């Protein structure tokens, strides 16, 4: 082979392999094939092994009666219900603690974040100690701590503390009085939702902003439900918790498990949110604050009208990931006995022995919740960005 031939061969090779586009396509195809192959091999193997061990498979178990009781139900539940309903009960419990946790953690985090920037030495140092202490201790330990505090430090139901009339605090949880159920309360709830939707719609009406001053909006949101309640007879009877047998009956109970989980999640995530809020505020140029002060705005107004709206754009993306963390961390509930979706499905896995199906359901649930929340936050982020 002459020198020239060799050059020609290497050029021919280079022309094929040297093309980054072709090479990229080839690598991607190979990778995709490998992934599909691996997943297929795993699935076939699992099916084969399950069949050989004659282990039951499929989601048929969901329609069978679950036969176990769940401690807290947002919808009526009993041991006679199906696994599917038990799953739904667990899912609602997860959503309940998730929703309450998101709101409370955001409020706490924002307050602490602002407190860390306070010019008051004591306030800012206290906020710093809180953030550093809470952020650096594993959440699971914090949950055990809160659970132990509630169950060990609080008295039994017979010696319950009564911080407010009708409110009892014991190692069985917090018992609160609730209004006796009445159509008027249902109507008031409906009116509240309608009022909030109406205000939001008027605010968002881009084409012709509807003149809606804040006092009118507040009036609508408060007034509409009050009016509905008054018109339907203003029922004021309360269902007050009282001791009967082993425990309190009546009213509504926030269980120690729920309280411990909520406290743990809110305090832990709040610390991270505080840092995000602080960094967001600090990232707003000092000149903005100085200019606002030069215009004669008070410091409260500067925060509300100038700093926060700009900081929000920086806060929302990392905040989204903290929200997702909070939701996923709620699955630690199983350690302290709160019946969230993981806990319920864990039980189902044990009773049916169908681990693959159960784990798939758990993953599916968290994927759907996380992606939905993520989509919502991305939409919000897009709405507030600079245009």
């Amino acid at each position, binding site marked *: 082979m002459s020198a020239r031939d060799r050059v020609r061969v290497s050029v021919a090779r280079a022309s094929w392999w040297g093309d980054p586009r072709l090479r990229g396509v080839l690598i991607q195809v190979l990778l995709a094939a490998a992934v599909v192959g691996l997943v297929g091999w795993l699935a076939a*193997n699992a099916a084969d092994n399950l069949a050989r061990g004659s282990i039951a498979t499929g989601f048929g178990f969901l329609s069978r009666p679950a*036969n176990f009781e769940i401690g807290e139900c947002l919808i009526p539940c009993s041991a006679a219900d199906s696994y599917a309903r038990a799953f739904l009960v667990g899912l609602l419990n997860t959503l309940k603690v998730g929703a309450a946790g998101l709101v409370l953690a955001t409020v706490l985090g924002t307050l602490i974040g602002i407190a860390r920037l306070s010019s008051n030495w004591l306030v800012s140092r206290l906020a710093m100690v809180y953030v550093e202490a809470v952020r650096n201790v594993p959440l699971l330990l914090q949950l055990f701590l809160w659970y132990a505090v509630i169950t060990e430090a609080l008295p039994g139901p017979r010696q319950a503390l009564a911080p407010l009339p009708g409110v009892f605090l014991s190692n069985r949880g917090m018992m609160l009085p609730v209004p006796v159920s009445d159509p008027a309360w249902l109507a008031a709830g409906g009116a509240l939702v309608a009022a909030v939707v109406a205000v939001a719609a008027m605010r968002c009406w881009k084409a012709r902003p509807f003149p809606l001053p804040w006092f009118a909006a507040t009036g609508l949101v408060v007034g509409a439900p009050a009016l509905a309640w008054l018109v339907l007879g203003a029922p004021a009877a309360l269902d007050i918790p009282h001791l009967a047998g082993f425990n309190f009956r009546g009213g509504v109970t926030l269980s120690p498990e729920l309280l411990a989980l909520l406290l743990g999640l809110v305090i832990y995530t709040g610390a991270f949110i505080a840092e995000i809020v602080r960094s967001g505020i600090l990232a707003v140029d000092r000149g903005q604050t100085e200019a606002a002060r030069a215009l004669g705005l008070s410091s409260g107004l500067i925060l509300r009208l100038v700093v926060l709206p700009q900081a929000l754009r920086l806060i929302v993306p990392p905040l989204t990931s903290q929200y997702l963390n909070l939701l996923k961390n709620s699955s630690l509930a199983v350690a302290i006995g709160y019946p969230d979706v993981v806990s319920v499905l864990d039980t189902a896995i044990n009773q049916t022995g169908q*681990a693959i199906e159960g784990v798939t359901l758990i993953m599916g649930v968290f994927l759907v919740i996380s992606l939905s929340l993520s989509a919502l936050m991305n939409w919000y982020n897009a709405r507030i960005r600079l245009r």
Partner: protein
Amino acid sequence: MKRGLMVAAVAVLTLAVTVGPARAGTTFDAVKARGFIQCGTNVGLAGFSSPDSSGRWTGLDVDICRAVAAAMFGDAEKVKYTPLSTQQRFTALQSGEVDLLSRNTTWTLTRDTANGLHFAPATFYDGQGFMVAKKLGLKSARELDGATICVQTGTTTELNLADYFRSHKMTFQPVVIEALSEVNHAFFSGRCDVLTSDTSQLASIRAADAPNPEDYVILPELISKEPLAPAVRHGDDQWFDLVRWVVFATLEAEEKGITSKTVDAALTSSDPAVQRLLGVQPGMGQAVGVGDKWVYNIVKQVGNYGEIFQRNVGKDSPLKLERGFNALWTQGGLMYSPPFR
């Protein structure tokens, strides 16, 4: 805890990646080649499986693992233990992480069939009961309407509890926690009025974990049948046979009056049944695939069933349980071995 779920996930993955030829003797041969038994036990239940002060695993369930090792290898110490939670135990066995599950596990139809397990004969006949604080002054489980009840997740206990309260038209508030230590903690701190589990387990918890064991009573009602039995996975009849007959051997030895102290003398016995059992007349060991000295090794190193019982949960232990159902059939109990011939 999270670990439970992690292990479940890992086990699912193990199920997915394990490729094994489907033939009898898979587990048996693998264990033999490996030289030790991987035994799934409880994470810590006094009397059944718990590490002692020097870190050695002891207990009735542990002794079953040791007896199988004594039969197979002639050495009861050839066992490695995998402590498993209620959550992890079945997937650990199904996926091959352990060869034998000897972990106070109730033998039920579903587990024996749909979960892909085989149960050896029960090593402890138990029933579910309730433990309450003595100061409540309760006399019967029928007085528990409205009580808050602590229960460990993933057990037959959870199901029996719901059944019992439903059939007696009573209500209860369950507090379901995965880790046994956390369940006990919740009960002793007063979070629950009642702790429910198998009565042997309640006795164990009361003896080992209660701040003051005298303050707690176990109510008289047994609300379920809980035959606790060792389990192996489907797919290896030879291994199942060995485990099953090791359990029978401990019973048969007790029935013949052979203990770890008298076993050497019994070798010279003129009773043909004893001769067959101890391998003086060959044949029995070969049938289960091990050496003819297998029962001799079990009894010599681990003891007969009576010795195992008394040492771990009976009169020589802090639990002080009566033999009850667990006496030999000749003494009015349920423990019965088919003939060794």
